[in-house]
């Protein structure tokens, strides 16, 4: 887990000003991206919501630390730091429980996947719903099994469609490291899911 932590920065004052109101708008605009990252890092809805809330308060107060570049990357970097802080305190509180594995939802992935799916789906075919829920549970398990530093890079790239530069800014790592983490993450996931991932999808390249 320690590999996840970004460098603790030198404290240098950046004398720029962005109004908290604008930061609030920016953060709300990218709230789903923030929540999604938090959810995948922390493993449950409750912690994700709390971490995003912390991040929002911090971002509006630290509005003057934004100094150009991708604004959503700046915001997600703050969200991520709040998630990591939460993981750390969780670790302190529950020293005996493994953090990377099974501390997430008690319901088991299949049921929570089904719950996530049901209210949103327009499909009315129960068979299809179950099938989809199983596929989702399988993907969720495979993603959760990834080392967190690979998982977060992959989520930002594949789900949020961040550029390499934006991912580098969020994770505070060089672009070269982004590339190698993405490559490892994709290779691991491909291996976990076997050839099934490819065969389930019709593609026209």
């Amino acid at each position, binding site marked *: 887990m320690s590999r996840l932590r970004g460098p603790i920065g030198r404290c240098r004052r950046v004398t720029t000003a962005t109004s908290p109101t604008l930061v609030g708008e920016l953060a709300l605009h990218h*709230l*789903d991206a923030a929540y999604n990252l938090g959810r995948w890092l922390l493993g449950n809805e409750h912690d994700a919501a709390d971490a995003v809330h912390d991040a929002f308060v911090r971002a509006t107060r630290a509005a003057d630390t934004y100094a150009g570049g991708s604004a959503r990357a700046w915001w997600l970097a703050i969200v991520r730091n709040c998630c990591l802080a939460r993981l750390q305190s969780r670790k302190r509180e529950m020293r005996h429980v493994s953090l990377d594995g099974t501390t997430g939802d008690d319901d088991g992935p299949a049921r929570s996947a089904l719950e996530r799916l049901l209210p949103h789906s327009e499909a009315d075919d129960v068979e299809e719903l179950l099938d989809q829920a199983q596929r989702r549970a399988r993907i969720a398990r495979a993603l959760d099994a990834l080392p967190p530093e690979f998982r977060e890079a992959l989520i930002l790239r594949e789900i949020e469609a961040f550029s390499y530069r934006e991912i580098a800014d969020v994770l505070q790592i060089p672009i070269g490291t982004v590339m190698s983490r993405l490559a490892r993450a994709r290779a691991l996931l491909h291996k976990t899911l076997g050839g099934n991932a490819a065969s389930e999808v019709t*593609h026209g390249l």
Partner: protein
Amino acid sequence: MDCKIARDALPLYFDGELDRTASREFEAHLDGCAICRVALIELDALRTTLRQDAPRHTAPQLLRKRLEKFAATQAREGAPIHPRRGGSAPRWLAHAASIALAFGAGGMAVTLWNSPRHASELAQTSMHSQLARDLFASHWRALAAASPVDVISTDRHTVKPWFEGKIGIAPTVHDFAEQGFDLVGGRIDYAGDLRLPVLVYRHGQHLIDVFVLPDTAAMASAATIAESGYRIDPVKIGTQNAAIVSDMDAGEMARFAQLLAAAR
């Protein structure tokens, strides 16, 4: 392009991180290489699977409402812009500052040239200053990068269609080599969420970025903004709003601005 190089370029191509020239070289290789085609299909299948079956967790409405309320309260109370200035910064602020610093080349601090009093003025100014900061940051990043351009060309007939293909905007491109301002090429850069075409010129030792601005993001003030020896001059290319960023002196900046304004 041989297969080994192509394998390294493959994820970059797939993620849209290759420039057009490299993309074309890669595609030429792809036409003749079944192994790379299969690898590309695998990447695509994995992405499709993730986008279909690892759905984005959307933020709960309750959270959104809570934050909107918090933001509204903050705005009413007129939260201080520099709450901790000069005091000992808490740890998270140090974190955030270090993140922000990562954006500016060499961690240069940008000073604000205006300290507004009213809220509306404030919002306006921070929009402008944010744009100015983004432009400076982009220019410095380009200086620090291996190449300040994504498409290298001294031919305006290459640069213009390159932009058109990438972002659907075809800015007016002129070469002023005869007047001492050589067209080097172009790149696309971000200012906030905007993707801006950047025309890159060289004048002696100076690199010049010309940011083509949409009407919605025009520099409101016509005044020059200076920072650490660099300047931003709002200009027009013909009738198009733009901004020059460079470390040239005021006289050279003005001369270049005149050339751009006269361009048709």
